[in-house]
């Protein structure tokens, strides 16, 4: 079961929901792993709320062409075939700009002299932590690197290679509706969209809903900071027939806990609401997610 937690706008509570749900799902579940992946690789923050032991760390690479001077005839073919302008052919050298390269292999495959070969270039780091029962995987993009997508897809690959298919996979997605977000929801069975009941929140939720329709994903909405702003968002969900999975109230206590990096399921009523969200998700998807849920209900 793969659940992505996403939002159109940043700062709506996506990471809060992802970390708290992950801890709930993992507690008491010994027979299958719960794996939370922080795919918001530009600004990964889940790790600030989850303190655990480091099991594994590795650099994440993407492939870029490396130039072999002795073979090159300076024919300019590599520059011509690069649709991303990532190569410059100068009178006595060929330059490759890793940030612009999409690792498409066109230059390597089409070079008549085999003067380019793919080599690894680091773009970020992956860390695997164990936080009690929870496996937490974090992808972090190096500063100056510009493409989040290859790092997101490699972080997902790591989870698929290291955990059985029947695990509960939760993804903390990057905000927005463009390609990094798409990459992180592509494999999900279900998407939870987090939104705030404000005009900005509604506008961005509308975009996220359209995105879900475009990529054909089943989804539900969690309203965060419920009580703030107005109820336009509830009306929107009714009109668009979007399922509301739960409402997290606008409480100073939550904001304070969040500011200190604490989990909000320590507040009993929030814990109940989070379990509710999981129950609804289980009902909709027909899949078992959280053992604790079945104990309490």
């Amino acid at each position, binding site marked *: 079961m793969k659940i992505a937690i996403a939002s159109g706008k940043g700062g709506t509570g996506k990471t809060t929901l992802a970390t708290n749900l992950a801890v709930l799902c993992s507690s008491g579940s010994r027979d299958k792993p719960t794996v939370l992946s922080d795919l918001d690789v530009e600004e990964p923050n889940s790790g600030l709320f989850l303190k655990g032991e480091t099991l594994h760390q590795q650099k994440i690479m993407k492939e870029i062409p490396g130039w072999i001077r002795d073979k090159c005839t300076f024919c300019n073919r590599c*520059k011509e075939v690069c*649709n*991303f*302008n*990532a190569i*410059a*052919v*100068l*009178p006595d*050298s060929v*330059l490759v*700009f890793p*940030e*612009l390269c999409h690792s498409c292999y066109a230059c390597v495959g089409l070079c008549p002299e085999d003067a380019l070969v793919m080599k690894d270039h680091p773009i970020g780091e992956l860390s695997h932590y164990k936080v009690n029962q929870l496996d937490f995987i974090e992808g972090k993009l190096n500063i100056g690197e510009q493409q989040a997508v290859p790092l997101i897809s490699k972080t997902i690959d790591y989870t698929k290679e290291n955990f059985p298919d029947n695990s509960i996979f939760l993804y903390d997605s990057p905000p927005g509706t463009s390609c990094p977000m798409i990459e992180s929801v592509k494999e999900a069975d279900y998407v939870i969209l987090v939104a705030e009941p404000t005009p900005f929140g509604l506008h961005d939720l509308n975009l996220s809903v359209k995105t879900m329709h475009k990529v054909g994903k089943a989804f539900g909405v969690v309203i965060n900071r419920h009580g703030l702003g107005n109820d336009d968002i509830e009306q929107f969900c009714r009109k668009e027939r979007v399922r509301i999975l739960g409402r997290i109230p606008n409480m100073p206590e939550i904001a304070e806990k969040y500011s200190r990096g604490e989990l909000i399921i320590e507040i009993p009523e929030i814990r109940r609401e989070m379990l509710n969200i999981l129950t609804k998700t289980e009902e909709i998807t027909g899949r078992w997610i959280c053992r604790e849920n079945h104990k309490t209900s």
Partner: protein
Amino acid sequence: MKILFTARGTDWNAEPDNRFGRGKYFVVYDEEQDHLTAHSNEENVNARHGAGIQAAQKAINLGVEVIISAELGPKARQTISQSHCRLYTIDDSSTIQELYRQYKKGNLKEQ
């Protein structure tokens, strides 16, 4: 010495173009031949990515030794650093002729 100006037109009266990668024309003055040539930079003006890099490659391949343009971005600068080109920043001159005069007087800022 061959000197390159980024400009919005093709002759000495052209206005300097405050963009390097997406500058409209590369106007090159060959001091020895006393000859001015203009090269359209159309392909890079509309480039989707890496306009600075490709413009730098173009400048180097034109064989210029001095480039007078806006401040170059990091990638264009890296490309230029592979050559012996010197970079100067355009001032508020209204034509490239005036800009050339300022360059000769040593009034332009080296990048």
